[in-house]
């Protein structure tokens, strides 16, 4: 039983990390109708900034806040310089334009930080583990990550559903031109959302840095998962991204935890591990295909989405 709880926590932790990335991606798509592949690069830059600033300042919190701020600023700069001309264009142009950015940032990182990658240790005050019940202990850092993820999710929900800015975000998401016509400053809100998305990617990069190694291309893998999540959840929907992230995170963690056990009844341990790994990652894409087939708008589409 405690194993099941622990594996569920592992799944939730992965889910919330993915949610931090997917939230920015889906917000930007919802409001600006813009497909931004360079969102994964912002995640990577966040991790590199974190590794650098934490080493410089010697403090996870100060360095982390600096990293998030820098990632947000970088996101705004990208938006102003490179993405704005692409706003009115078709999705293919946007995908190509932002894919170029992905290549640029991968080589930029190689140039600035070198090919070897960086490491960021879990901060001392979060390095331990706590006992949650009989035979159930869990690393503090991962619990904090779950907490931060939940707070961000709640904050985003309140922002979008309960504030005037959120009202404009929702209005712009369902009809950008009409929202502009009735006097909402859509451009400003767009920029704000883009900065917010970048900051969330930076936050995800910061928290991922000690768990994964900080390396070139680390954003590419997470971008693919984030894309799967926002499609399953419904493009532009925060609620959808949250729930889809939970589904994907739990499938991955529980699949890795229990599938080998099941397959071992018929296969050797090595083969079972290979098959289970393949199956649990394939399961996500099967779900994606199924969702696209049955509910092309996603499981939890944003209201008013076309």
């Amino acid at each position: 039983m405690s194993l099941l709880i622990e594996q569920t926590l592992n799944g939730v932790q992965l889910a919330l990390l993915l949610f931090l990335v997917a939230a920015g991606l889906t917000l930007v798509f919802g409001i600006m109708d813009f497909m931004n592949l360079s969102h994964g690069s912002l995640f990577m830059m966040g991790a590199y900034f974190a590794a650098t600033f934490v080493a410089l300042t010697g403090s996870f919190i100060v360095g982390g806040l600096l990293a998030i701020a820098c990632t947000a600023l970088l996101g705004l700069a990208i938006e102003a310089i490179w993405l704005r001309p692409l706003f009115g264009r078709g999705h293919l142009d946007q995908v190509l334009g932002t894919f170029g950015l992905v290549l640029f940032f991968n080589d930029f990182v190689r140039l600035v930080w070198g090919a070897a990658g960086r490491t960021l240790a879990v901060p001392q005050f979060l390095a331990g583990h706590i006992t949650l019940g009989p035979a159930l202990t869990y690393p503090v850092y991962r619990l904090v990550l779950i907490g931060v993820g939940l707070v961000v999710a709640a904050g985003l929900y309140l922002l979008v559903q309960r504030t005037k800015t959120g009202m404009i975000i929702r209005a712009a998401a369902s009809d950008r031109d009409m929202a502009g016509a009735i006097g909402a400053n859509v451009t400003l809100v767009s920029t704000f959302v883009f900065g917010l998305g970048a900051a969330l990617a930076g936050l995800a990069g910061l928290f991922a840095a000690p768990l994964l190694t900080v390396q070139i291309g680390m954003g590419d893998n997470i971008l693919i998962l984030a894309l799967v999540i926002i499609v399953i959840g419904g493009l532009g929907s925060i609620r959808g991204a949250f729930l889809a992230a939970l589904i994907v995170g739990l499938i991955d963690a529980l699949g890795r935890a229990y599938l080998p056990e099941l397959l071992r009844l018929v296969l050797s341990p090595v083969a079972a591990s290979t098959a289970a790994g393949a199956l649990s990652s394939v399961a996500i894409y099967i779900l994606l295909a199924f969702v696209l087939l049955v509910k092309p708008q996603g499981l939890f589409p944003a209201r008013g989405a076309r």
Partner: protein
Amino acid sequence: MVRTFATAALMSACAVVYAHAEAGKIKIGYVNTFSGPNAFIGNDEKDGFELALDHLGRKMGNLDVQMIYEDDQIKPEVGRQVTEKLLQSDKVDVVTGYNWSNVLLASVKPAVDAKTFIISGNAGPSQLAGEACSPWFFSASWQNDQTPMALGELLNQRGVKKLFVLAPNYAAGKDMAAGVKKTFKGEVVGEEYTRWPGQVDFSTELSKVRSVKPDAVWVFYPGQAGAQFIQQYSQAGLLGQIPIYSSFTVDALTLPQLKELALGHVSTQEWVQDLDNPTNKKFVADFRKKYGRYPSYYSAQNYDAAMLIASAVVATAGKLDDKDAFRAALEKANFQSVRGKFRYNSNHFPIQDFYAQEVVKDPQGDYTMKTIGTVFTDMKDVFYEKCAMK
């Protein structure tokens, strides 16, 4: 007639001079991982090889050494591509390096097809020791199963009855896990094979370890993944609760990250930095002087690989075209190894000792390894009888 003859004579003289000038150097292609989080392994192995070249005055016999380094990005297909490039466009005389078993397995065939010697500085996949052994392949390291076999024996000596086994799911991971299971006499209560090289989050597997409650855990996570694994093992509260043993995981490369987390960690190895022989003393001292850190078995093996190649060049008086003589010279392995002794088995893998080692703090406060015993003496790998070379 006379003029034609004179021209021909002159031309052939030129050809001889030209061939001699070309023969004045040996081109060595070196394939390893120089990018990504495991670049520190490739660089460490390169440093070991380069130190040997320094000691040789950058000459092997009477030949100047020309090195060409290539990055395999820890991908088998890239390793194969750069190996083919070294063989076909650079026309190297020897290819070496090769840290990863899957990269090596992909790269052997092009070298064998080109009738060029390929010498592993680290990887030792079981296939190349047995059925797929080749007259063109030599190992300067070990066969994958051996080091964990020594560890399995150590676990028996230490009275471990229930063992949990964790390794990445690729050629070396499977060999290593098979190795520890060959000698370990207790019960293997859990076995996990994780994605490689992508997976660096081990939360799912660590949860399983906790639920199974083994007497000990054995892992094989080379390079950066090893540092990640031990750190997460500690964060999960398992360090100090369930003893952990490893192969190729806690070493001179990961110790600077692990520090006190690894203090007292026990593993097995064919070389330890404190081995008491003059060659090793000089190697360790000069390595620390040149690079400012302790060498690892990675750099030690690559030091030996360079010395091995040099010994064959000397024995054949620099005649690189006489492949049979060169092979015979490699088989003799007539050089001073940092391991103290070095001789080849019929399958071109070394017959050597395996030691138990423990992480200690040196007087300067740096973390390093100390030999605490010999587990196997003159050990042969278990695959050589399947090799057609006798």
